[in-house]
């Protein structure tokens, strides 16, 4: 069976990001998954990669990946595409993952599919991707006609499934070329650590909109998120007003999320916002305007003042969790 390369997303100490396990699950439908591990931490991660079906783990433990913007990762993948002739390359559909995919596509003369929410083997065995377009208004089925299919899969779209594999580690000697070392990373500044899950990977997202009224008012969104163990999102109106940072913006511009549960509070649901969240599995909305378009896509909606509904909801959640 042909190899399928899976570029691992991970922390420096070997913690495997959930999306990597999702990629492994999708890769198994196309062939035998070979993880490509950049930088340190592979030893700690090996058991986890084995649990989710990795056949091989190519480990290139070079400091160049953390030292230069995306080009070294694309260079490593291009050399593995040449040596392993994989059936496909799967990469996390994050902003950085897509950039790696793009550079790899140029290097290998291959087609690239971004934002795939599902990947299956087509009738000829070649990968077929589902891509939501225009914020999920339509779904496109796409294939790659040239080179090695490169697919960036949106985090949280494919359910990770356990399937034991050998995860045999194979060290790869890698030093980035000078051409891949033109954009130097001189510092990595980590924002104040948050206990909340990452927005694009969270299974529950609670977002607040204009209805929260102010930066102070937005605090109730954080409280509700914490009571549900959720990530916090914000509408463009909130970000434009400066009530919450842009990194948390959900919408046509900003993050696209598709969690199991999306709670939209004080968000009217303009097309620009829906484009970032309408593929969520379950949608709950609270808004004082019964005509708000968010109710058209909500599985459950409450027409009311968020400042009375949400505190009561938080209290109820507390009670139910206390039981």
């Amino acid at each position, binding site marked *: 069976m042909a190899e399928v390369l899976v570029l691992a997303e991970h922390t420096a100490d070997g913690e495997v990001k959930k999306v990597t396990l999702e990629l492994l699950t999708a890769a198994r439908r196309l062939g035998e998954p070979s993880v490509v591990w950049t930088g340190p931490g592979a030893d700690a991660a090996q058991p986890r990669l084995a649990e989710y079906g990795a056949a091989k783990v190519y480990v290139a433990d070079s400091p160049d990946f953390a030292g230069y*913007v995306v080009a070294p990762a*694309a260079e490593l993948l291009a050399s593995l595409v040449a040596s392993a002739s994989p059936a496909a390359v799967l990469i996390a559909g994050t*902003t950085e993952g*897509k*950039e*790696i*995919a*793009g*550079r790899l*596509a140029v290097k290998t003369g*291959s*087609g*690239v*599919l*971004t934002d795939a929410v599902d990947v299956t083997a087509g009738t000829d065995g070649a990968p077929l991707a589902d891509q939501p*377009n*225009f914020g999920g*208004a*339509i*779904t*496109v*089925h*796409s*294939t790659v*006609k040239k*080179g090695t299919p490169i697919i960036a899969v949106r985090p949280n779209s494919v359910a990770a499934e356990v399937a034991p594999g050998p995860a045999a580690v194979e060290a790869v000697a890698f030093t980035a070329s000078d051409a891949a070392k033109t*954009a*130097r*990373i*001189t510092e*990595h*500044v*980590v924002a104040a650590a948050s206990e909340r899950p990452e*927005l*694009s990977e969270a299974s529950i997202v609670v977002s607040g909109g204009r209805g929260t009224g102010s930066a102070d008012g937005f605090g109730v969104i954080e409280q509700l998120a914490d009571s*549900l163990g959720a990530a916090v999102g914000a509408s463009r109106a909130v*970000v434009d007003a400066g009530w919450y940072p842009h*990194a948390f913006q959900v919408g*046509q*511009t900003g993050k696209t999320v598709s969690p*199991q*549960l999306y709670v939209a509070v004080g968000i009217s649901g303009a097309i*620009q916002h829906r484009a970032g969240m309408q593929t969520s599995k379950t*949608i*709950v909305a*609270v808004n004082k305007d019964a005509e708000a378009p968010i*109710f058209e*896509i*909500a*599985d459950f*909606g*409450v*027409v*009311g*003042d968020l400042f*009375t*509904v949400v505190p*009561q*909801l938080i209290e109820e959640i507390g009670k139910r*969790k206390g039981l």
Partner: protein
Amino acid sequence: MNIVVCVKQVPDTEVERSLVPGDNTVDRASVDGVINYLDEFAIEEGLKIAEAQGGEVTILSVGPAKAAESIRKALSMGAHKAVHVIDDALAGSDALETSLAIAEALKVVGFDLVVFGSESTDARTGVVPAMVAERLGVPQLTLAGKVDVSGSEVTIRRVADDGYEVVTGSLPAVVSVVEKINEPRYPTFKGIMAAKKKPVQTLSLADLSLDPGSVGLANAASWVEDFAKRPPRAAGVVVKDEGDGGGKTAAFLADRKFI
């Protein structure tokens, strides 16, 4: 400094958009074309850098005749001149092909700094700036939330999920900027009038020494087999809060096993 800002005309995001049945390309005809919202930040950043460092801002757009409206708007914001790459053979190009046309056009036009918006609101692939940097072999300074130019060095804050990275490269370079990096200016009446007289050069594939067989729908490496409108979501339950809205919501969440 010679700054080139790449601008894409996209279908208006405020209305319903779709693909053209048959060839499955973006329907650009039945919807108003607007400047890609994220490119407005790129134009503003290019203008700011030119104002601070001296130099000119050239708008570069690859697109059909209709894109001329968006080029004119970019000029009315203050850019000095524009280059419009227009050729029927480009229709239906995918990201790989588009990046080829842009890279070749940049070689013809010449540049010190190329500025992109981080992605387009239509295809949203987010791959073109990285592809162009790869093709040109210049530093990829993308996803910038802040750009500083000092002599021949460009330093950006590259936005990451957990904070940011400080990234430096030498000119010539490719930069992409994220939403909210600045406040894009509105065209003034004077700007709109001046834009009418600014030069717009058109380039064909032949001018870029590109073979028509290297671009366009028929030669694309990524291919749309078919598409379907997303089925409307089943109507949900909407209740009016009568003092029990929070409780009812909690009951719904419990029923669905979220709590």
